[in-house]
């Protein structure tokens, strides 16, 4: 779908170099600066915002979305836009994870990751090798996963068949385990993207799939591997979410799909692919969590929190677009 093939658009207007451009960039920078200042003032004047407990809370609430968003970052950087099947995948894997608890934590985790890889990897292979439209494909996948999960489970809630899962709720050093895992995974993903041949190919394919094909890069394989890895990360999210909720059903994923997309976009990763980083996604997830937290502490309703999340994403998308276009002229 050409909606996703962002620039370079052949019909882009000729940008004239000179003052007008630098003025535009100046405006962008000014807007950014004001926004940051406003956020700081708002944060500092919010009662109990600047406390260790609150910082921990922000990280904890960012952690589950953050891990899934890391997976989505791989998909987005590789030029496959987004997956709309994150929530159902997480729900299905979470149910599998809890029902496998009788084998012990580690085997259950391994099984969950394997299933996550399988579910998302199949979609990745189709996107990679056949160049299928990822948005529509993942819509189909979300129907399929929910349908199968409902059919198999009969719609009932899965309760853990053993107690091992509770170790995922541990708080070493007073901070939730999922926060450590988030930071660790973010570093691993960042390193993979920056330091491995796979990471380089992923950026190249994401920026220009046609050129990558012409250069003989393994487009299909690299894309499929990115989705596989994303599937594994979704599975980790699923395990933590299921453990936290101590039960899982087909609704376990909740609004995770859109929360993860919002985190990726708020981190400044363009949906067209080829750019972005794991650490920026981490920042995006924390930014959204912090904004929700400020609003909650100031007594705003859930609706206002969601509204602000949307506005943050919109502003970041527009600013990132303007900036990259500006640097291109």
């Amino acid at each position, binding site marked *: 779908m050409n909606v996703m093939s962002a620039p370079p658009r052949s019909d882009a207007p000729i940008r004239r170099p000179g003052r007008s451009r630098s003025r535009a960039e100046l405006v962008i920078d000014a807007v950014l600066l004001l926004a940051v200042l406003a956020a700081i003032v708002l944060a500092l004047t919010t009662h109990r915002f600047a406390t260790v407990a609150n910082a921990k809370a922000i990280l904890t609430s960012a952690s589950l979305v953050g891990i899934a968003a890391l997976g989505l970052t791989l998909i987005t950087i590789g030029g496959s836009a987004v997956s709309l099947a994150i929530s159902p995948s997480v729900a299905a894997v979470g149910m599998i994870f809890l029902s496998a608890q009788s084998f012990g934590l580690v085997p259950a985790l391994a099984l969950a990751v394997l299933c996550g890889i399988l579910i998302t990897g199949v979609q990745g292979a189709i996107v990679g090798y056949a160049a299928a439209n990822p948005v529509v494909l993942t819509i189909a996948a979300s129907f399929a996963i929910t349908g199968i999960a409902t059919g198999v489970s009969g719609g009932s809630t899965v309760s853990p068949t053993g107690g091992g899962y509770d170790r995922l709720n541990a708080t070493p050093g007073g901070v939730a385990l999922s926060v450590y895992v988030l930071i660790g995974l973010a570093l691993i993903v960042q390193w993979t993207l920056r330091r491995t041949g796979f990471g380089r190919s992923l950026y190249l394919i994401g920026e220009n799939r046609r050129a990558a*094909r012409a*250069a003989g890069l393994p487009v299909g394989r690299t894309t499929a591997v990115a989705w596989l890895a994303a599937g594994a990360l979704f599975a980790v999210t699923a395990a933590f979410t299921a453990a936290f909720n101590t039960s899982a059903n087909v609704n376990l994923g909740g609004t995770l799909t859109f929360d993860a997309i919002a985190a990726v976009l708020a981190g400044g990763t363009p949906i067209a692919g080829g750019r972005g980083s794991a650490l920026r996604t981490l920042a995006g997830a924390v930014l959204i969590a912090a904004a929700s937290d400020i609003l909650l502490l100031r007594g705003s309703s859930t609706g206002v929190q969601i509204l602000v999340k949307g506005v943050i994403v919109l502003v970041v998308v527009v600013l990132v677009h303007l900036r990259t276009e500006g640097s291109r002229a």
Partner: protein
Amino acid sequence: MSATGEELVRVDDLTKSFGSTRAVHGASFGIAAGEIHALCGHNGAGKSTVVKMLSGQETPDAGAIRIGGDRLDLHSRQVAQRSGVALVDQELSVVASLTVAENLMLGDLRAGWLNRRRAAGPRLRALLDNVGLGHVDLDQPLSELGIGERQLVEIARALGQDARLLILDEPTATLSDVESEYVYAAVRAVAATGRAILFVSHRLGEVLGLCDRVTVMRDGAVVATTAVAGLTIDSLIVQMLGEAPHRLRKRTGREAEGPAEVLNVSGLSVAGRVDDFSIGLRPGRVYALAGQLGSGASEVLRAIAGLVPAATGDIEVDGVTVRPGHPIAATRAGIAFVSNDRKSEGLFLDKPISWNLLATRLPAVTRWGVIDRQRWSTALTRLVGLCGLDGKRSADSVRSLSGGNQQKVFVGRGLGRSDVRVLLLDDPTRGVDVGGRAAIHVLLRDAADRGMTVLFSSTELEELLDLADVVITMHKGVVVRRHDGDVAGPVLLREMTHGAATPAEERR
């Protein structure tokens, strides 16, 4: 007919720059009512930029455009259309997902808001018949038509717009002779009604046969406007090229018989584009495919590189068959390809120079899949040196480079790799300045000296003469002639613009 009518279109001192590129400067000429006015010049001379300014797609930096005496500010396509300018763009600009009739009505100002497809039927039918598309149904989707027929539809659309000025930018480049004849007849008929026609073409025969006067451009400036009566193909070539490049090509002294053929292509065909192309290439030599837009030269290179799914024929590298249509198979077999479209099919513009240079070499610079800094910088230093780039800038994005240096990066990606046997380049110096061009030529020559087989396509005489050991001319999808020996520039130009036609078949 002759250019005796009063001047209808007047262009004065038109100037346009893109960044540091002066595409057009100080261009002036006029077109009389009823005149067919040709605009000639070799690639990059600025013809299309003039066309874009006349048709409202670009705003001139300076200069004036007058139609019917009024000075016009053509700041958008709609304004230009309302001022009576109809256009056939250099790039095919019809929409494949619409029907023929819808394409004919697209953008037509007189069509109004109401869709009068039924009412317009007879008029549209006549337009199609006019350009030889009598067999095409008005309600057929355009996607069912061939490239030539689509081009004719676009021409028919422009012809039907009742414009004061009709611009055709290389309208016949992708057409057969029969199809072209229809276009000539239709254009003559429009001119006969007292309109002005600007006809851009590389086909000098048709320029002389069809047009009344020719304006020749070179490097963004107008060289001269001359009545065709006083011109021959050869004198026109002289105007286009400056001093006549009559020097014979220097033989490079390499033996015609040498080591065994590296690349062997036989019976390569792409329906509608290339017909039965065969060639054998030896290592250490530079080969050129010479042909204008639509000659099939690019298509041959793309097919060998595995980028044309519909290609048939046999391709062998060192006696091993390469599956057609698989770019990865071609790469494995040792074929590297440099596309003519470096922006969308070549470079990764937002990525650093280093990434671009090493994009195809990732397995060689990684250990266990992890980038090995040592190998990375060794390979990079070697390539940067080989390409003559500034090593200190290798972390900058390719976008920040000039066109010439971008092209060097693109070409350089295929160099310095022991596994590359055949380097294919589609128009490797397109839009590159003189200095950059010379540097790329040196790169290619060095590559051949190191034992690589180089095959490039080009439209430019000087490049063909300077660089190639063997030149194969192509015209309308078939090979005209292979020149292993000495050849004069004008001969090549004649074959490229004319095919194998003997001088007797020409009008002049």
